[in-house]
């Protein structure tokens, strides 16, 4: 049984088909990159994984659970922008991850100390201790995204969804963020879906790269046919498949 399973998912806005017949199953701990042209439905797909939208047909489930109807605690998300709360300090943003689950959004007194320790640990991990009392608007784009990822991980989601998380960063910062993300992923073994425009980024970070495109074009009305997953690449071992085939099937060894 796969961890995240997407079964025959369709999405239509009115008469416009966005996605059709999307089937994919993902194991726990896999890093899935999602690429495709603009408007091919990859962000729609991510919004459906997030349960911000429900598919018009088919269903998406995590760990065999019932399909979600609204975003919840089991899904973490980082958007390209606006992922952190501007009216809270960096520390406040991390504490919010702990406090928002309580009925009034405030931690009870006895839980506060433990939460503050965890927030401090996360601050150290994402390297933002020196700006802990500042507001997000005074941070650089890379720092804001590190904060957003740290905040999402504080809530220990089952899957992490990234919507072009590094799209607004400069190339140098982007490379740093790649290393940061890979380290975090090795530490947590989290299942990640990342939508990106950057093919190179997708292959570098992902275990699998899903390509969204329209399988065929209707000559009369381009809106009739939606996009689907047209390629599902194995991106491990620098994107060259079967490098570890001998480990799996030793009998294929020569001699």
């Amino acid at each position, binding site marked *: 049984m796969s961890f995240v399973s997407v079964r025959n998912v369709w999405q239509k806005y009115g008469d416009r088909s966005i996605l059709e017949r999307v089937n994919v199953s993902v194991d726990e701990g896999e890093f899935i990159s999602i690429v495709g042209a603009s408007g091919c439905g990859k962000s729609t797909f991510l919004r459906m994984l997030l349960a911000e939208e429900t598919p018009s047909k088919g269903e998406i489930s995590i760990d065999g659970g019932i399909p979600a109807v609204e975003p919840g605690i089991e899904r973490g998300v980082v958007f390209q*922008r*606006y992922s952190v*709360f*501007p009216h809270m*300090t960096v520390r406040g943003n991390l504490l*919010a991850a702990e406090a*928002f689950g309580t009925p009034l*959004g405030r931690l009870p007194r006895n839980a506060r100390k433990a939460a503050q320790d965890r927030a401090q640990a996360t601050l150290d991990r994402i390297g933002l201790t020196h700006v802990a009392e500042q507001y997000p608007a005074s941070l650089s784009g890379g720092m804001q995204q590190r904060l957003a990822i740290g905040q999402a991980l504080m809530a220990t989601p089952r899957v992490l969804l990234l919507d072009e998380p590094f799209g607004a960063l400069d190339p140098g910062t982007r490379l740093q963020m790649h290393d940061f993300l890979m380290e975090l992923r090795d530490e947590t073994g989290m299942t990640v879906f990342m939508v990106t425009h950057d093919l190179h980024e997708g292959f570098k970070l992902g275990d699998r790269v899903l390509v969204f495109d329209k399988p065929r074009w209707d000559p009369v009305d381009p809106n009739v046919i939606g996009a689907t997953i047209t390629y599902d690449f194995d991106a491990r071992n620098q994107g060259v498949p079967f490098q570890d085939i001998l480990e799996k099937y030793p009998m294929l060894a020569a001699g």
Partner: protein
Amino acid sequence: MRLINRIPNRPGAVLLAALPFVLLLVAYSVASDIRLTANPSDKLLPAPSTIAATAERLFTEPDRRSKEILLWNDTVASLARLMGGVGISALLSLVIGLAIGLLPYARSLFSSFIAVLSMVPPLALLPILFIVFGLGETSKVVLIVIGITPFMTRDLAQRVLEIPKEQIVKAQTLGASTAVIALRVALPQILPRLISNVRLSLGSAWLFLIAAEAVASNVGLGYRIFLVRRYLAMDVILTYVIWITLLAFIIDWLLKTLSRRAFPWMEAGL
């Protein structure tokens, strides 16, 4: 150099800022002087010195009959009505604005109603308010509330809707309920806007207050102005007008300072 690129230096800017005030004062003094030379008992444009003397009398000397200083009584009464009306409006607009901005059901229920309500000219309702609520304090406070709440509500609702969807979704993935999103995500972000709304609405609030006091009252700044109009007491009227302006200015400044102190994150990006 283009005119749009010319910037006055610091003393120049201060001088320019003072210029309109000085010109107004000079123009008034000259006009007043001309009229007083022609007719020393002219009441229309009292000399600045007369106004100053009247002001001193109004602020310090008690009324002969009631033994109370009327100007302070008027100020307290008017400010109480103003604060009451503006306070109720702020609270109402905050609650309804949050509801409209966050809850699709509340949006369907309220938004067109408030759009229509904001088109009703509040002063036209004044007679109805006097009939329904009597001539006491209630009708004056209600006039202010009716006058400024729709505008403030619409603006706050709009501001809540402008909070990026990403933030709302993010809060949900952190496990926040609707109440938590309202209290910890939306409310703190629209409070600065509420204060700036109050600042903008104070002008209208004063207008409604003075209008209501002029029509039916027995104490209040607006009441006094319209009372002494009968005696052509321009010195009293002008003193009151300057006093009201000063009060409005001080309230505005206080709110501005409060906003800057209370919401440091607003300026973090600057």
